[in-house]
């Protein structure tokens, strides 16, 4: 099957469908959710019914509504984190690759040092010192995540900066930023876009695990990781409440990965004009 000149597999179509459905839920949550995300509407862990399609949670809030609002917070924050980490990683990574010398050495060793500390522990320390607000959360995870983006950008950038066209730009007298943005970045896009999708999944899972530990997004704001934690006790009574947000996390991760796989397959092929 072809869409706009690109081959699209069934997997990719499914991926796109999942991603769009999630985005739709995130954008229109206040309109489509039957109840507010903080409203107590019935019994604790009430079973699914006609009024409450997915049942109620540990405080008696509507699970479906919280899932929809949760998509909103989780996806928007994960997206924000990924964009920030890419902005930091691309600028520092390409600077290191293009400038080389002691700038490269300094940045690379700094990144090595940060990467040597387990990410989750590091994040927990920072969040418990600075407190858990959304800006701190975004800043912390973006900074930690950007180390991986830095590594990728530097590796890809070093390969590109040895090309003669970069030397031509330097001989012309172009500034560092021009070389980075116009000569290097366009040629680094395929691996970067792929990485963006994967990083988004990781950011999103990372928030979920932080929320599960109680240091992520704070109640009453709904988010999928937090919802798993809030309802974890239901497992003891054979309830399915924690499985619903867990499934939501799983389906978005799978959806994004399907899209990423498709994108990868496009660029692993021809080096010709389309690549």
């Amino acid at each position, binding site marked *: 099957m072809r869409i706009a000149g690109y081959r699209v597999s069934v997997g990719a179509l499914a991926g796109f469908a999942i991603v769009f459905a999630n985005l739709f839920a995130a954008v229109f949550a206040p309109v489509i959710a039957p109840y507010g995300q903080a409203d107590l509407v019935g019994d604790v862990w009430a079973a699914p019914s006609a009024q409450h399609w997915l049942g109620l949670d540990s405080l008696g809030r509507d699970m479906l509504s919280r899932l929809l609002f949760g998509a909103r917070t989780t996806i928007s924050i994960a997206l924000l984190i990924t964009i920030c980490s890419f902005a930091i990683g691309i600028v520092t990574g390409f600077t290191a690759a293009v400038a080389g010398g002691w700038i490269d050495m300094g940045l690379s060793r700094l990144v090595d040092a940060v990467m040597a500390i387990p990410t989750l522990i590091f994040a927990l320390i920072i969040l418990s010192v600075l407190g858990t607000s959304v800006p701190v959360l975004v800043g912390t995870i973006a900074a930690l995540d950007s180390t991986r983006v830095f590594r990728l950008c530097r590796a890809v950038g070093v390969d590109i900066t040895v*090309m003669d066209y970069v030397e031509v730009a330097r001989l012309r007298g172009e500034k560092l930023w021009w070389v980075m943005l116009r000569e290097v970045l366009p040629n680094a896009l395929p691996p970067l876009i792929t990485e963006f999708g994967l990083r988004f999944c990781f950011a999103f899972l990372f928030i979920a695990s932080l929320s599960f530990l109680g240091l992520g997004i704070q109640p009453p704001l709904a988010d999928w990781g937090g919802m798993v934690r809030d309802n974890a006790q239901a497992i003891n009574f054979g309830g399915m409440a924690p499985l619903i947000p867990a499934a939501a996390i799983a389906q978005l991760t799978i959806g994004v990965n399907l899209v990423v796989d498709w994108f990868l397959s496009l660029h692993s092929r021809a080096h010709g004009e389309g690549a």
Partner: protein
Amino acid sequence: MSDEILRMESLQITAQAEHGGPGKKIVEDVDLILHRGEVLGLIGESGAGKSTIGLAALGYTRPGCRITGGRVLFEGMNLRDASPESRRRLRGRRIAYIAQSAAAAFNPAKTLYAQICEGPIRHGVMSLEQARIEAVQLFRELDLPSPENFGERYPHQVSGGQLQRAMAAMAMSCRPDILVLDEPTTALDVTTQIEVLAAIRKLIREHRTAGLYISHDLAVVAQVANRIMVLRQGRKVEEGRADQILLQPRQEYTRALVAIREAKVARPAASTTDSKPLLELTGVTASYAKLAHVVEGIDLSVRKGETVAVVGESGSGKSTLARVITGLLPREAGEILFRGRSLEPALASRSRDLLRRIQMIYQMPDVALNPRQRVQEIIGRPLAFYQGMESAKRKERVRELLQAIDLAPEFAHRFPGELSGGQKQRVCIARALAAEPDLLICDEVTSALDPLVAEGILELLGRLQRDLGYAYIFITHDIGTVRRIADRVAVMLKGQIVAEGPLAKVFAPPYHPYTQALLSSVPEMRTDWLDGVLAERGQLGEAAAM
């Protein structure tokens, strides 16, 4: 005929199209007969299908390609229908292959013995003991140094020319009936090429091995081959005895290939030679990261409208010299005067106007053009950068520049991936012209191109010089090119200039010994050239020994 060993009948090989559909035929309707003890040269430019035919002789095609018609008969057995097992038994044992890059063909982690003896042992032809004795014998025949111990070395411990000969030994280790040689000397310097060529020729003559010798260089093939087949775009153009192809080519295309090294590129009259030098180097020395000096004590001057060729083998420091002039590698000592003013050593401290006046053109047009920019953007950038030209005017100027390099205006909208090699190099030239420079440094600009395409580029550069009076520094290893375009020559050896002066003086007796070695190593378009050179050198060697 009874001694016929390989026959191809209306061979057709197709490259599969990417999304189904009919594939592209890369070899079409080629007939070929090879007799025992005979060498057939396959000649053609890139894309002519010569390597594909060479591999087909082993019953092999590259991934994505398929033999879609005709037959490949080895001693009457059709390799196309043969089982993979029987083909495997033939390969290496009866039909062997020598690739262009020996460095890529050897495993760096194993000794040469281990790799050369692997074939005979695997095929069950010889015992390890026997294979080693045979290998030493082959090393001796190939004139390799200390043949008894040569095989104990690792690939990185021998020179490029020796490694190429070691690969010949590997291919010959099973005493094959047919040897397929795919550009075995193309990656080597001229002086090394001659050794390898002589060794390989001796070997196949002594063993009466039949050979398919693939090359783009007609002069090289003519030294080895009995017969030559000229190919173009997957089809046979002409076939005949080697001397007949060289002396009486029947087809227009072959004639062009034979004549290619002879015509001199039209040059401006040397009326400007009395003017002051545009660029003057005195005692220039530079090195990479505190290593030994890569270039040392270079004196060189270039006048307006003049072409100075810098000649040397790989590693002689000629490209480094270009990097020193452009400021990519700051000089450590010496002085460079440009338009009478001292040139700042480092790129970063030079003014924009100075950068504009010195432009580079590179060897590999593929990597010298950003694949994500259209031609308009590539050529337009220097216009915007140096002259601050606005968009509409820039479009007009790019159009003019495309016209100057003989490309249609539509090319402005193309990406480099949509251009041929020669067109890409033309775009590189246009980009340099856009800066309106005084000096153009051309670093091996024709060596990655097919002969006829390279011809066009040289003509273009000559015409631009006549019309616009640029000065060229022409870095090359190809003496033929130098003869045709240079006013003055500088011969480089190990980072130093060993001979310098007007072309007629440097390339005429009395020679510097290295210049002579270089000159006599350039293959000439006659079949007895190699014999002549070897005889001459043999005499010299004997004289020296006495």
